[in-house]
């Protein structure tokens, strides 16, 4: 069989081939969310003053609150991005 006789059937069959390329990029996370939460601060051993203990405890509360805000922001980020992603039909 000559190659030329194969061209027409090949062309006819090739019309059924369709390449669809729609790419969606994974959403970028704000850099502020990717920094890890810090360890809690420890009180220096030998400390006898209550004020120094309270100061460290208050600092640790601050670190917790920072981390809480970050975790809540992560959840908010996920919900928002999921809604946007689900909106694509």
């Amino acid at each position: 069989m000559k190659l030329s006789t194969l061209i027409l059937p090949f062309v006819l069959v090739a019309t059924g081939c369709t390449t669809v390329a729609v790419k969606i990029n994974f959403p970028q996370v704000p850099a502020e969310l990717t920094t890890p939460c810090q360890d809690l601060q420890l009180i220096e051993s030998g400390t006898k003053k209550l004020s120094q203990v309270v100061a460290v405890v208050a600092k640790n509360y601050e670190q917790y609150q920072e981390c809480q805000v970050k975790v809540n922001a992560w959840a908010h980020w996920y919900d928002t991005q999921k809604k946007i992603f689900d909106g694509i039909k």
Partner: protein
Amino acid sequence: MTWIIEHTLLLLPTGFWFAFAVIGATIYFFSDFVSAIPPFVPYAKFVKAGGGIMLLAGVYLSGGAGITAEWQRQVTEMQQQVAIAEKSSKDANELIRTMLQEKTKVIYERQIIVQEKIAKDSEKMDAVCQIDPVAIEDLNLAAGGKKK
């Protein structure tokens, strides 16, 4: 080779194959008349078959072109949706970043006030309470440190 054929087929307007089929049908159904036209006389026996092939190929490729056009329309629509989604995603990120910065600023500012207040009240606190070293050890343990 394949891509040249595909590209050529995509370049043709959708109506081309329909016109091709109509011409094929005309040749097929009026083959007796066409065969009588002087330039086609030597090819009289091929005219009807040729017209039939043109009709079939035209109908098939017209359908294929229609499907391709529909696919392309859907792809364009999807690309537009993706572009809108990516913009919404960036806007949402900006909003989250602003919210995070504002909340963190409030926490820092409150901490400055708290530390100043502790410093101010330290004399009062330290006058009435002496901390036993075991209390420090226990607190550090709770904070994730090791008990010494």
